[in-house]
């Protein structure tokens, strides 16, 4: 083997059946050039005897249970001199033959890579781990993955804050530089601590999403939650003393973000992504719901977001007099901005903005919109304040060409469209064009995911009135289904092309997500999405003219939108169907472009740059004016240590094996 020397260290304590399964599945993988050391952490069952019968394993027997940290450190000390090490829990199962080689390649892909982890799934297939993060507010480590169904998310290589050491590839240079696991911890937090120490010394931690292992989490310690909790709390306090100041200091500034988060709306979805990205980039956001009673959207917002990071952000205390606040929502709630410096961030689907929005916008220090289309519209509508384009983004960890596909097994070419039934999307245009262009005998289908929440609209009746031909192109519908957003990539990937026909768009997130998934797309050549759509990465749909916008939405009154050309739509549908290689190549170009330019990280960078330019972000404000974290807050009631992955808040401070 020409790669690095590697020592695999499997830590075991009783539960021989787990160790046996781990070793059996490990033996079936490619371990060329590696030595396997099993550290028997003082097992009292048949483990010692059974290990003696496995000739390809070197056993290191400890006289008693030394705990997770000391047990692993004993293995590291026993590793072949100069070798990289891979720490492994005994409750892992290996199903990927080249797992070790891929981790090694990732670890040696750049000189500054020090620690590498992998995806881990539960035995039932749910995603358990795709890296970890820890919030200084709570010091309660979280595993990325949140027990989502595995649809191939996080399958690339990404830099992460930390990984759990149930599987950790550590380069020898890192061990030489910072030593083994810190003895401050008996168990829990030692992995986060190690990754932070490595980062301090200049080494990155990566998630190698090309590798997935099955982790029967807590297989060795199941059923002893009280002891685990005591151990966890002790380690957490040690971790706080060691790292609280450092973690607090990662924030460069504080920002009040007034928006909507826990409703199924476009603003809410993008708000969540922006809050995550800003937090990850050192902006300590404090979130407040901007709608509610006496606003245009009176419902009270549900408290739980289902996302630990967002729950923490939502729970932060609001400063008495926030220096800067962004209202991200419709322009008629800009007046609720509570900052000393006020920013209004909005968008609209027509070529201008209502008078009330403009009046409120003119009381902001500056206005942000995601597109040049909206910037022009605001200025044309009488905006007097500075206005800047701050584009939105897409999460390429969840929307990329590697996401799982559940495609039509009959081999039909599938066009996918997602829309809310209404005037702006004018579904009849697409349905008629498709039905007219194709015949029922052709292996092609239009799949429409339709939402209708308007009690005044009867979709069945409207479809009936279209009088689609039985002999024409066939259409299937997914009606009023709400898919988890993280699964939508799988919906896109299960189609061959995406169609977005509408009169106007304020951004068009589904289109961007479909493009990021590598689908060739047809989209009306008018609206905010022109920011990221062009003939090199999509098929722009010709517009006949711009016409008065007629819809129930009062915000559109007096403005105009596009009138897409039905004949050109038919031409494009047929063209994609008949020129699949060309279309596929254009979709792939779109995916590359989305990943390179249009991520949420890039969106957050634009926001930070804007804040900096307006003097709202001190150049070196690490930790300044931020509330110092004191004693650890009490754990939320529902954050009890999960016994078998039942809690949504996943602890990530160590794998708890062999304690």
């Amino acid at each position: 083997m020409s790669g690095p020397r590697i020592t695999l260290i499997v830590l075991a304590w009783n539960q021989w059946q787990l160790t046996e399964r781990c070793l059996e599945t490990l033996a079936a993988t490619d371990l060329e050039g590696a030595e396997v050391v099993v550290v028997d952490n003082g097992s009292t069952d048949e483990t010692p005897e059974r290990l003696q019968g496995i000739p390809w394993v070197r056993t290191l027997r400890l006289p008693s249970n030394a705990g997770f940290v000391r047990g692993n450190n004993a293995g590291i000390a026993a590793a072949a001199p100069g070798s990289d090490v891979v720490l492994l829990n005994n409750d892992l199962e290996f199903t990927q033959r080249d797992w070790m080689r891929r981790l090694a390649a990732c670890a040696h892909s750049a000189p500054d890579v020090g620690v590498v982890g992998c995806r881990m799934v539960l035995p039932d297939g749910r995603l358990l781990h795709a890296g970890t993060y820890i919030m200084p507010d709570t010091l309660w480590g979280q595993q990325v993955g949140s027990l989502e169904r595995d649809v191939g998310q996080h399958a690339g290589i990404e830099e992460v804050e930390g990984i759990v050491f149930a599987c950790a590839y550590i380069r020898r240079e890192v061990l030489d530089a910072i030593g083994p696991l810190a003895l401050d911890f008996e168990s829990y937090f030692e992995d986060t601590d190690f990754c932070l120490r490595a980062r301090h010394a200049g080494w990155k931690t990566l998630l190698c999403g090309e590798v997935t292992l099955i982790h029967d989490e807590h297989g060795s310690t199941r059923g002893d939650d009280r002891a685990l909790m005591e151990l966890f709390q002790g380690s957490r306090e040690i971790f706080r003393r060691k790292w609280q100041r450092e973690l607090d200091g990662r924030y460069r500034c504080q920002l009040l973000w007034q928006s909507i988060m826990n409703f199924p709306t476009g603003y809410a979805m993008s708000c969540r992504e922006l809050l995550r990205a800003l937090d990850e980039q050192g902006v300590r956001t404090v979130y407040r719901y901007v709608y509610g009673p006496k606003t245009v959207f009176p419902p009270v917002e549900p408290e739980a977001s289902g996302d630990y990071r967002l729950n923490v952000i939502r729970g932060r205390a609001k400063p008495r007099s926030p220096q800067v606040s962004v209202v991200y929502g419709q322009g008629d709630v800009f007046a609720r901005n509570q900052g000393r410096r006020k920013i209004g961030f909005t968008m609209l689907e027509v070529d201008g903005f209502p008078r009330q929005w403009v009046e409120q916008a003119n009381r902001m220090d500056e206005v942000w919109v995601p597109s040049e289309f909206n910037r022009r519209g605001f200025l044309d509508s009488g905006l007097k304040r500075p206005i800047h384009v701050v584009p939105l983004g897409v999460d390429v960890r969840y929307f990329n060409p590697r996401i799982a596909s559940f495609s039509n097994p009959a081999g039909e070419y599938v066009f996918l469209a997602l829309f809310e039934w209404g005037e702006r999307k004018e579904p009849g245009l697409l349905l008629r064009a498709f039905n007219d262009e194709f015949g029922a005998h052709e292996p092609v289908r239009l799949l429409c995911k339709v939402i209708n929440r308007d009690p005044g609209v009867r979709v069945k009746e409207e479809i009936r009135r279209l009088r689609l031909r039985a002999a024409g192109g066939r259409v299937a519908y997914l009606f009023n289904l709400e898919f988890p957003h993280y699964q939508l990539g799988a919906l896109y990937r299960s189609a061959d092309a995406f169609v977005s026909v509408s009169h106007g768009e304020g951004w068009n997130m589904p289109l961007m997500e479909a493009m990021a998934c590598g689908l060739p797309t047809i989209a009306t050549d008018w609206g905010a999405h022109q920011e990221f759509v062009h003939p090199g990465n999509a098929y722009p749909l010709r517009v006949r003219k711009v016409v008065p916008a007629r819809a129930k939405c009062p915000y559109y009154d007096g403005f105009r939108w596009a009138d897409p050309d039905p004949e050109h739509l038919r031409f494009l549908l047929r063209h994609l169907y008949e020129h699949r290689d060309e279309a596929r190549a254009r979709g792939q170009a779109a995916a590359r472009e989305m990943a390179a330019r249009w991520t949420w990280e890039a969106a957050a960078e634009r926001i930070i740059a804007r804040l900096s330019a307006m003097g709202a972000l001190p150049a070196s404000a690490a930790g300044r004016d931020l509330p110092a974290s004191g004693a650890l807050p009490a754990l939320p009631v529902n954050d009890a240590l999960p016994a078998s992955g039942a809690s949504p808040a996943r602890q990530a401070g160590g794998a708890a094996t062999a304690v």
Partner: protein
Amino acid sequence: MTPAPPAAAPAPASDSSSELRIARLEGQVAALEAALERRSRELQVLQRLLCPRDLVQWARVAAGLPPLPQIAYEPGYWHETRELTVADVPATLEALWYSLHPERPSGPAGPAGPLRTSR
């Protein structure tokens, strides 16, 4: 449906075996027609009482075909609701493709059920 004729009168006693056979057959025909009429009345009642989707489901099951998936993909079978149903992409698509091509070997995993929506 054409009303069934009244049941045939019993055949006169005869030593002829062919006459006896004809009488038995006429009796069987009469019984079958009566059963058909009863069945027809049942179907008319079902048609009146069941919604189109349930009728299709019942007919498919009666014909030995698998039922359609829980979620309707054709507007004719929709229940026109304003509520959103939480669903799972893989299970929904599997059921969709199966409903469009039931002759293909892989069956649906079951109805598209609720899943975690958090991340």
